[in-house]
């Protein structure tokens, strides 16, 4: 090495240390500003409006008097919470065995099955609802089958009741529950239950006392996410339920879209936000939400509330142990290992039903969405691809999703680096803030943005859609990227730095190549989230900038024909392909 090179080396070292000096938490600032402008401000503004008289802007409780004065809205609130709670419990009970089963599979097979679990999650809620409408109709397939076995030859009423709505909601939320529990379960050291058995525990005890116990953070996180998301449902209850299944999301949509009553819509949104936050905080106190952070450092904070939560879970585990052991004792000699597999295959089948129904309905030769279709043909595909309106919506969805996913990944990526690399104690607060859009039901965010954008002339612009989709896609993208970066070996970066590479060079030649797969996967997931997003699109697209899901929504109001199915087949194809690519990249 000659002298001049050494000189250069030292100069670079000086630059590197200069670049390294600022706390990495600064990297979260652009993201924080973005969230402050387009999430915190609009949601707060909406809450403030709910306390203002629409004309004088003076303080007024009129909207809240209306909420609490008329029993109708309290009833709607009660229904909303009860339905969300039931959905959550069903999702956890049904989803846990499926998630467990998936962890037992080989990665390749698991990846494929996850795609099957996720496909219905990415299928438009409208399309799924119409799938169920067709299937569960009075003279539908299920009713006909039930009529064969029931004594009077009469099938029970399947639609337009609480059961149908609950099924629709569980069906929609189950993939989210499974996908939240899965990573936590995968982290569990599988030799631990075996170790417990060598120490004398029975199989059931080994499972419940060790595996189940370790998977609890996943269950609690899944429970919270499903509960919050369930609060904002409005399509499923409207189509599958009757008046008694009215949920608060429907009322908010109505108040804003047809009556344009910001004050009342704001008050209803406030109830939703406040209760969502209250539930989150109570939840965090009771069970802890460490699973959301996918953090390796387990919390050791031990309040009395947490102890109650833990003992609650202990009790569940204990009762389950007794039950399973009792069952094992009764059925001694019988092997039921195949039961889990069968159950999981059936459950995945249930998840796929409406999506699978859509395929033949998209290729029907008849004029209606019906199953089985009277004949097959490309008639509605031709309508879809020949319609400038549908094509414009499709291209807009691609464009918006492309930009939104880039922006999301950029913001989430820098913020993730900040949180992972900074030793600052504010890191935890920043972390929580980036998750906040997940804690506020998306309909509230959408209404808040609608109000803000109306003032900024951003309604009916592509930019408005991009911003809205970015806000909603941020939390999931952020969580995914934090996980990727936590898994990254930062020692390699340090090694490169000691060898003289500056920050940018380390980033470009060491960090990025190593996390590339995870980064691209996060990008694609953000793309998918934007591509199939409906709630923000309903409010922001203003009819001019219609995205594909919004076009499907409009189509429901004015017409229903198999074009809807044809369009959703296209959405499915796009989303499915991207998902496969993302899965491959993640490896």
């Amino acid at each position, binding site marked *: 090495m000659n002298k001049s090179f050494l000189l250069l080396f030292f100069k670079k070292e000086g630059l590197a240390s200069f670049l390294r000096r600022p706390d990495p938490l600064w990297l979260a600032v652009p993201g924080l500003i973005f969230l402050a402008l387009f999430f915190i401000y609009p949601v707060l503004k909406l809450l403030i409006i709910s306390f203002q008289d629409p004309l004088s802007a003076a303080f007024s409780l009129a909207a809240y008097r209306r909420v609490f004065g008329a029993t109708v809205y309290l009833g709607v609130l009660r229904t909303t919470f009860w339905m969300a709670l039931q959905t959550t419990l069903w999702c956890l009970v049904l989803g846990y065995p499926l998630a467990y089963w998936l962890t037992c599979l080989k990665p390749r097979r698991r990846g494929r099955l996850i795609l099957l679990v996720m496909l219905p999650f990415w299928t438009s809620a409208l399309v799924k609802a119409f799938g169920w409408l067709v299937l569960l109709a009075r003279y539908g397939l299920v009713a006909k089958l039930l009529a064969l076995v029931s004594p009077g030859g009469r099938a029970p009423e399947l639609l337009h009741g609480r059961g149908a709505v609950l099924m629709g909601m569980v069906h929609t939320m189950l993939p989210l529950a499974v996908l939240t529990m899965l990573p936590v379960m995968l982290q569990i050291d599988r030799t631990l239950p075996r170790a417990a058995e060598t120490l004398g525990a029975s199989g059931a005890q080994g499972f419940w006392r060790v595996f189940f116990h370790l998977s609890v953070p996943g269950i609690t996180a899944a429970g919270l996410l499903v509960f919050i998301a369930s609060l904002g449902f409005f399509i499923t209850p409207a189509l599958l339920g009757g008046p008694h299944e009215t949920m608060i999301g429907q009322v908010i949509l109505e108040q804003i879209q047809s009556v344009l009553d910001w004050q009342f819509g704001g008050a209803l949104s406030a109830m939703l936000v406040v209760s969502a936050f209250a539930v989150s905080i109570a939840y965090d106190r009771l069970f802890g939400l460490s699973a959301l952070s996918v953090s390796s450092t387990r919390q050791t904070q031990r309040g009395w509330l947490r102890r109650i939560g833990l003992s609650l879970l202990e009790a569940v585990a204990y009762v389950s142990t007794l039950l399973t052991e009792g069952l094992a004792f009764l059925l001694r000699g019988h092997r039921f290992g195949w039961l889990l597999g069968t159950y999981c295959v059936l459950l995945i089948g249930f998840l796929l039903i409406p999506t699978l129904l859509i395929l033949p309905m998209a290729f029907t030769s008849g004029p209606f969405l019906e199953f089985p279709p009277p004949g097959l043909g490309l008639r509605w595909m031709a309508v879809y691809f020949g319609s400038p309106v549908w094509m414009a919506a499709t291209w807009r969805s691609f464009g918006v999703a492309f930009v939104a996913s880039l922006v999301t990944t950029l913001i989430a990526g820098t913020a993730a680096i900040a949180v992972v690399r900074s030793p600052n104690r504010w890191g935890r607060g920043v972390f929580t803030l980036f998750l906040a859009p997940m804690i506020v039901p998306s309909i509230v965010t959408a209404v808040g943005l609608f109000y803000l954008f109306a003032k900024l002339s951003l309604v009916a612009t592509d930019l408005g859609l991009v911003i809205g989709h970015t806000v909603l896609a941020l939390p999931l993208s952020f969580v995914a990227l934090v996980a990727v970066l936590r898994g990254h070996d930062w020692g390699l970066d340090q090694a490169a730095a000691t060898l003289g590479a500056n920050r940018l060079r380390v980033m470009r030649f060491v960090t990025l190549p190593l996390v590339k797969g995870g980064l691209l996967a996060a990008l694609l997931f953000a793309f998918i989230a934007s591509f199939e997003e409906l709630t923000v699109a309903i409010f922001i697209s*203003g*009819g001019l900038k219609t995205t594909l899901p919004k076009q499907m929504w*409009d189509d429901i109001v*004015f*017409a229903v024909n198999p074009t809807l199915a044809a369009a959703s087949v296209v959405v499915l194809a796009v989303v499915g392909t991207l998902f496969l690519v993302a899965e491959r990249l993640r490896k």
Partner: protein
Amino acid sequence: MINHMLTRRSALAVGGALLASPRIRRASAAATQITVADNGGPVGASFRDAFYDPFEKATGIKVVNITQNVDPVAAFRVMVETGSYTTDVALLTPGFVYRLTHPTNYLEALDLTPAQLPGMIPQMVTPNFMGTDVWTTVFAYRTDKFAQAGPESWADFWNVDKFPGRRGLYRSPGTNLEIALMADGVPYDKVYPLDVERAFASLDRIKPHIDVWWTSGAQSTQLLQSGEVDLLSIWSARAQVDIDGGTPARIVWNQNIASVDGWSIPKGSPRADISRQFVKFCAGAAQQAAYTTVMKNGPTNVDAYNAIPPERGRLLPTFPDNRRSMLLYDNEWWGANYAAIKQRFDAWLLA
């Protein structure tokens, strides 16, 4: 209200507006093109054939059509207030027109005289609105369920002993109060002003027998087509889609409740003159006859029936036979009372 919001813009909002201003589509100086907001779907497609393409051919002015919100009022107000005219002509209902003229007027005068509009049904034109097509709420029933002597009036619809079967109604107070009054014996031309108490008392009687409260046009079509219900209130064009597709169903035109879609021009539009020319063009009998080939709504210009084959004409709301007991939905009454009655209706539905 929006005015008020604009004056109270925070510094933050202004900053955002500056940031966003290049995105606003400004009106182009050369008016070789107008943008028309319609309801999309089959409406947009049939208007393209009947209005847009012929207008382009006749004048050389290009017509671009876009789909507007189900409720376009909010976006419309914002458009006028910010002066970003993304729409030159919009398809509205008298209810929207009422909200866009009370208390502040957001609409341009159309300057149309009856002499300029031969054949037009008089109620279909106001100073700032010209009806293009009439759609109506009727009831339809499955003919495989009621083979002989089906229900013929709303009173029959209410008569669950004589006509047992699963029933559906639209989940909205609008039209249901009118229906309830007619079912209770009020003649169709004495329905307004609505006797709200009597209407709810009448609704109380039918409520236990309503199996489905439908919420979207698509859903009503699907309910009738699949036989989920045996009789339901439905928009006539939507029921006709089912019948055309082979569903055994019949539309009962007696005591139907009609409303109208039509054109309005945003106040201050830089292309208002050409837009007026376009609106007038759409009043023509030939144009109005043309859209009925796809969409089964009724022309507002009765001369159009001269150009429509009678077998198709019979299916349309403004066909003379179908208009005999037609009630015109009173948007002014509803404009003044909607919010309060909507709340009462929701409470009633959930009680």
